[in-house]
């Protein structure tokens, strides 16, 4: 029999509420699973003491009745979130030893709802990567394997994806700047939501590209995503870009009913050289939504092809500005200085020692595209292209499309090391997801099938701004029909 750690959030919530299980039992099952899963390298800072304390408090709250849905639920937190008194280093050497004196808004909200944190999760350094191989902690390994080959869990939220897929926690937080929730969710057979820009507060989340970053839930089911998204969402005076609009009761309005709705199938997402399995998955997704009573229409998003190049101007530009704060003065690593080293030498050596290669690459590209003489040619041009990408979506929504169906990724999980030496090949992973960030839209990746090697594949649904509720209905319609129940065979 599987342990309690294999429960979904909704199942655990129901059993906690009737007193069939306690949060302490559930938490201990997760902590034990974490201990046994060292080979995955998903959890980089376990927090068992805090978890015990929070579980105890949750049990008291549950006993008193009226506990929120997340009360007593063990979750993992991506290392990008600042958690008070707990190491939070964005998987970077430059934040070695950093323990925030404050709590991010998202984790505060989760804790207020009674969630239990079991540990901090691995990721690509500063969320820059698609394979969790740029982490200072070493890479995470996907719980799914192809024969004996170790695969990437995707990235940047690869630790979160692996932890949920391997039942080390019931749900996890992720962040998504160009696909960092949806791609790893697809690679590990779980559900991941990138909410509308502004739905979730960014306060206390270590910034990568502020106009693109959004946090979201990574869970074992669509219902769980609805529960956890609601707990994470809402206006925050400390993030001026967080929207002051009501948060729906996402679980309460979840029906999976999409009859009479219109789903767009964008022709530009049919890429040359796409594996047959991805094509078949997409076709089966279309049949599932037709079976659910939705109408499919062919649409065009003409600027899709230039989304990645635009992203690789905008995101590094913002990153170069955001990461300027790591100067060895206020927190984290400072290089040991030689006699006579001035403050510039301190900055340059500290940043050379503290940042990994991919982060350096992106900070320097960002510096270049923002530098005098290149600003208009690169940065302003990319911002104009971004406006056109957003307009593509507005046009199809104005024509009556309610959601857009695409594959989540151009392939299944690939072997560790395979793309590590070729940045541009690595960037192509985000080809289906990055448009959503550039346009600020909500997107969800939902597991929908297995490829011929037995690896999970995900479908992506893209929704209208602020319509995460409707988007979750589409995702549930897929989940109900895909019947995806496969789990990775345990080898760790």
């Amino acid at each position, binding site marked *: 029999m599987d342990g309690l750690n294999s429960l979904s959030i909704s199942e655990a919530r129901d059993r906690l509420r009737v007193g069939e299980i306690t949060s302490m039992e559930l938490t201990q099952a997760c902590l034990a699973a974490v201990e046994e899963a060292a080979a995955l390298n998903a959890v980089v800072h376990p927090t068992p003491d805090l978890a015990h304390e929070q579980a105890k408090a949750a049990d008291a709250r549950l006993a008193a009745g009226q506990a929120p849905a997340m009360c007593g639920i063990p979750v993992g937190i991506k290392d990008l979130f600042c958690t008070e008194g707990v190491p939070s280093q964005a998987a970077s050497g430059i934040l070695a030893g950093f323990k925030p004196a404050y709590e991010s808004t998202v984790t505060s909200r989760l804790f207020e709802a009674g969630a239990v944190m079991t540990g901090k999760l691995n990721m690509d350094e500063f969320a820059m990567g698609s394979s969790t191989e740029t982490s200072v902690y070493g890479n995470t390994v996907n719980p799914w394997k192809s024969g004996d080959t170790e695969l990437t869990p995707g990235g940047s939220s690869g630790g979160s994806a692996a932890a949920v897929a391997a039942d080390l926690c019931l749900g996890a937080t992720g962040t998504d700047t160009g696909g960092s929730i949806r791609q790893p969710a697809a690679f590990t057979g779980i559900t991941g939501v990138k909410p509308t820009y502004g739905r979730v507060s960014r306060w206390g989340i270590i910034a990568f590209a502020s106009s693109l970053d959004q946090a979201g839930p990574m869970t074992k089911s669509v219902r769980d995503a609805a529960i956890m998204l609601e707990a994470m969402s809402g206006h925050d005076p400390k993030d001026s870009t967080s929207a002051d609009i009501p948060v729906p009761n996402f679980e309460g309005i979840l029906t999976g009913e999409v009859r009479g709705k219109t789903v767009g199938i964008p022709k530009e997402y049919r890429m040359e050289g796409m594996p047959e399995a991805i094509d078949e998955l997409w076709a089966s997704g279309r049949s599932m939504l037709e079976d659910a009573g939705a109408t499919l229409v062919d649409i065009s998003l003409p600027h899709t092809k230039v989304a990645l190049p635009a992203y690789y101007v905008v995101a590094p530009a913002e990153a170069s500005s955001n990461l300027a704060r790591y100067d060895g003065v206020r927190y984290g690593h*400072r290089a040991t200085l030689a006699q006579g080293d001035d403050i510039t030498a301190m900055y340059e050596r500290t*940043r050379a020692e503290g940042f990994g290669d991919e982060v350096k690459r992106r900070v320097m590209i960002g510096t*270049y595209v923002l530098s005098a003489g290149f600003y208009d040619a690169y940065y302003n041009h990319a911002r104009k292209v971004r406006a056109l990408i957003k307009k593509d979506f507005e046009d199809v929504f104005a024509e009556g499309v309610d959601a857009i169906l695409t594959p989540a990724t151009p392939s299944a999980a690939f072997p560790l090391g395979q793309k590590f030496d070729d940045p541009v090949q690595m960037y192509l992973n985000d080809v289906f997801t990055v448009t959503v960030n550039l346009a600020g839209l909500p997107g969800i990746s939902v597991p929908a099938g297995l490829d011929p090697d037995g690896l999970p594949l995900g479908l992506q649904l893209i929704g209208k701004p602020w319509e995460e509720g409707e988007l979750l209905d589409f995702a549930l319609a897929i989940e109900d029909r895909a019947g995806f129940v496969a789990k990775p065979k345990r080898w760790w």
Partner: protein
Amino acid sequence: MPIDRDDARRVAHLARIRVDEEDLPALASEFNAILGFIEQLREVDVRDVEPMTSVTPMRLKRREDRIAGGGIAEKVLANAPDAREGYFVVPKVVE
């Protein structure tokens, strides 16, 4: 116009990241690969397009201009690599 070793050195310095002289050619070639990829943007006609400033139409909130916190110097300095007597310590800046 491809990036050469001098451009790479200049960018690294602007970004305040030390790069050893012998690593500059490899860095320049990486930049060229990435910028070559970005070049695709040139195919797009952006005449009369306003550059995006905000992805969602929003008016930034205003708040009352009053002190909302403070008095936590110890917490602010707690993670500093070097702090003394309530200050961050850095190498001498002014001679």
